[in-house]
């Protein structure tokens, strides 16, 4: 917030969905156009991920000029992380939104360091630690079964403490 007043540089991230109507080979052109918008405003790109086609969790609708709705069940999801003067971000956001092949955008102010776990997230998610197992069993059972849940959760937590330590050690090594 203070950045707006000072006009300092801030770190932003824009996530965007490109329309599936764009053919796969033209995606790089679209990305170049989006990157140009950002760099044209004087931003330095810190990180990005090229859009990849994926199924959306729900069908999105977008109103066309004629008033009818277009439905999208899948789209290309990509993101860009960059540093820009706080005063210029509004213009960038508008040009993203007015781009016809961009279905949806999400602008965040974020931090310079990497927040995206990516593949590491898969590993972490795959590790069924005791506490997580407890979450799952609890989520699936009714509230009335709380007592039984606690009994199930306790041994699982105890058994996986070593696993957890090991996984944390591995992660620390990765970071170094």
């Amino acid at each position, binding site marked *: 917030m203070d950045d707006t007043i000072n006009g300092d540089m801030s770190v932003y991230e824009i*996530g965007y*969905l490109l329309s599936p109507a764009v053919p796969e080979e033209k995606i790089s052109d679209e990305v170049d156009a989006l990157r140009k918008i950002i760099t044209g405003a004087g931003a330095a790109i810190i990180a990005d991920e090229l859009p990849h086609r994926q199924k*959306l*969790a*729900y069908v*999105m609708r977008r109103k066309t000029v004629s008033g009818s709705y277009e439905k999208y069940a899948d*789209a290309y*999801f990509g*993101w860009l992380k960059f540093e820009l003067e706080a005063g210029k971000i509004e213009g960038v956001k508008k040009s993203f939104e007015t781009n016809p092949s961009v279905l*949806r955008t*999400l602008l*965040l102010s*974020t*931090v310079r*360091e990497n*927040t*995206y*776990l*990516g593949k590491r*997230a*898969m590993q*972490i*998610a795959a590790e069924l*630690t005791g*506490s*997580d197992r*407890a*979450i*799952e069993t*609890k*989520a*699936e059972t009714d509230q009335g079964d709380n007592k039984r849940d606690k009994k199930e959760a*306790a041994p699982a*937590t105890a058994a996986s403490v070593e696993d*957890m330590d090991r*996984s*944390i050690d591995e*992660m*620390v090594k990765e*970071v170094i």
Partner: protein
Amino acid sequence: MKKQCYFNQHNIKYIDYKDTDVLKRFLNPHGRIISRKRTGISAKYQRQLATAVKRARFMGLLPYVAS
């Protein structure tokens, strides 16, 4: 035994909306966010988690309602 915060344990400082595999762990089969009481996450990260889930929903990475 008191449950420990998942994000503290895994050294995750910022919860990113793109990490849907992690976020999915904290949704019930209907796609609703599981309460703090059940997740055992610290208040700080439960707030971050809620924001991240809502962002992911907006971008179509997670469902608003799962059948």
